[in-house]
């Protein structure tokens, strides 16, 4: 661990595992990931979810519950299955076993069902994936107009409001290629929000950004969390996790290794793998 965490917690954590791991709400470790934060109502539930890529087990027996208005940050080394997990939630990957329920709707192979869930879950990608042939405002209004059947005028009004929310209304008529990475990612967030989703999934949203642009995107995400959005965020931004997350999930090799409050992770991680990982990135 580096200077990022204060001296006493670092030595404390390294020296004695789990001495005061469950002391109060500040630093809490959970027995498993089904013990959720938020309002107490379940928004997303994964039960015994397995995902195979050929013989490789990308996810094995994942059990997670995310509460309404909860912000859950997922960390872990690359290849640990954290992206795969959130991509299973909106069926960009198909899980092989187990149950995934989003806001009371269980994900099945029925296309209508899949689309219903996709409408309720916004996703933000590492590489933005804006549509390069459409202007910024068209990117934002495309899905509301075509899926939610909003009129053009209503969609544009809403789109402009969202662009103001992410603080780039003046870029509305430009094409994505004319924007900086940070601006593009904020447009991508606005685009996902335009569908009025109940959940937002973030797949390493700042990993492809130049360092000076990371904060503008994180600030937008913080605004969103403050507004009560349910969020699952795969990220390496520990500062963000510490400030915003209700819970942090550490994954490795397709399994959930450790769950706890951010304080727990930064002061007193239990598992050896967690410590190793945190030592590498902090």
């Amino acid at each position, binding site marked *: 661990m580096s200077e990022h965490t204060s001296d006493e917690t670092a030595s404390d954590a390294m020296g004695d595992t789990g001495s005061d791991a469950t002391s109060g709400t500040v630093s809490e470790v959970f027995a498993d990931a089904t013990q959720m934060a938020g309002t107490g109502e379940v928004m997303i539930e994964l039960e015994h979810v397995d995902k195979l890529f050929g013989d490789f087990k990308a996810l094995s027996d994942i059990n997670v519950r995310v509460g309404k208005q909860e912000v859950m940050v997922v960390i872990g080394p690359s290849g640990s299955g954290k992206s795969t997990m959130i991509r299973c939630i909106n*069926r*960009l990957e198909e899980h092989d076993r187990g149950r995934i329920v989003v806001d009371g709707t269980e994900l099945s192979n029925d296309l209508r069902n899949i*689309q219903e869930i996709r409408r309720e879950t916004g996703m933000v*990608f590492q590489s933005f*994936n804006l549509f390069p*042939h459409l202007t910024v405002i068209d990117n934002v209004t*495309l899905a509301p107009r075509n*899926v939610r059947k909003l009129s053009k005028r209503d969609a544009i009004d809403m789109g402009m409001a969202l662009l103001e929310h992410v603080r780039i209304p003046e870029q509305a*008529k430009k094409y994505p290629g004319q924007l900086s990475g940070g601006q593009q990612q904020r447009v991508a967030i606005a685009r996902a929000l335009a569908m009025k989703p109940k959940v937002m999934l973030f797949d390493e949203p700042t990993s492809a950004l130049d360092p000076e642009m990371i904060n503008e995107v994180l600030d937008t995400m913080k605004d969103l969390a403050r507004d009560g959005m349910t969020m699952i965020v795969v990220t390496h931004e520990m500062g963000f996790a510490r400030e915003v997350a209700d819970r942090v999930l550490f994954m490795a090799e397709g399994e959930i290794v450790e769950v706890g409050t951010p304080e727990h992770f930064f002061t007193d991680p239990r598992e050896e793998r967690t410590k190793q990982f945190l030592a590498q990135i902090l």
Partner: protein
Amino acid sequence: MTNAVTWARRNLFRSPFDAVLTIVFGIVGLFIIHRSLNFIFVTGRWDVIRVNLRLLMIGRFPDTHVLRIAVTVVVLAGWAGLLAGLIRARQVRAGRVDVGATRLSWRRVSDVADRLWLPAFVVLLILMLTSTSGPWVMAIAAVVAAAIGRLIGPYVGRLPLIGLPGVLLMVALAVVPVILFFYVVSAVGFDEWGGFMLNLFLAVCSIVLCFPLGVALALGRRSTLPLVRVVCTLYIELVRGAPLFVLLLLANVALGFFIPSNLTPSTATRAIIVFTLFTAAYMAEIVRGGLQSVPRGQIEAAKALGLSPVRQMGLIVLPQALRNVIPAQIGQLISLFKDTSLAALAMGLFELLEVSTIITSQGDFRGQGLIGETIAFAALLFWTVSYTMSRESQRLERKLGVGTR
């Protein structure tokens, strides 16, 4: 002067080897230019073109119905102008063109001149060669019609037509060329058409038809349904494996075995069918390449937004795929246009190349070796159209910003 000398020294005579190259290719170049100019202005006997101009342009189209062609050309010009104005108005309203660029300015005039100088020059050349006033009247009427269409186009585009009236307008605009076609063909059967008109018509029909078919085949080849995939792949590979000339011959000869003679389409129709089916197979592979060039992330983003599979394809993937392969697509269409000159040898159609060779053996011109003149004229017409298509495709690319993303 010293500037010119230093420029020449730097660019043409930098080293002894450069100097030798410059001198050798300079001599070759000058020789070619000299011979060409000599052929065009001195030795060439262009009477054969002047006398047969009509045959070259419209073949043996009967006198009594020539007016229909003139009417068609004029209406088509007005229609094209109207469409151009309408599209422009839409783009301005959508904010894709800045309003300053719509005002009449020197820049715009020079832009239009830059686009049109070649076809305008060739049309003028042809008009100069005519011996009657009819073509002049038609040309002037066409220009006037195009101008009027272009001027009223924006107003039509600004009409508050939403829903059914808007759709009706679109349908009406789309139907105009079809009506014109039947207007001409009802008087003079397809097989009596000829000359360059026939080449243009074969090409335009095939281009319009092969494009959707090619896209459909490309999508079919990537379909998840095995039967569709196999059929499309088989079709593409079979057609691409056969020479166009063979397919044209086959359509001419072998179709009779399969279709009862009273149902057999006219020769020109068959030519269009073959050109369409042939080019569609190539188009399909070009479009498939375009589809593969669209990153996976685009589809994932479209899926994540809840777009249906049809909309994912129609709104996100296809527009990008088609844009990415504009140069290859236009190349294929240019190739199709030039291949219409095969229609004579394979199917006996009286198209431009056929006319160009036949007229050299007319009474007055027989045995004078005028094939050079007539072929040069045919080449000029083919080149003009091909080059214009190529230029327009580059313009389209720039406009859609391909390669700048």
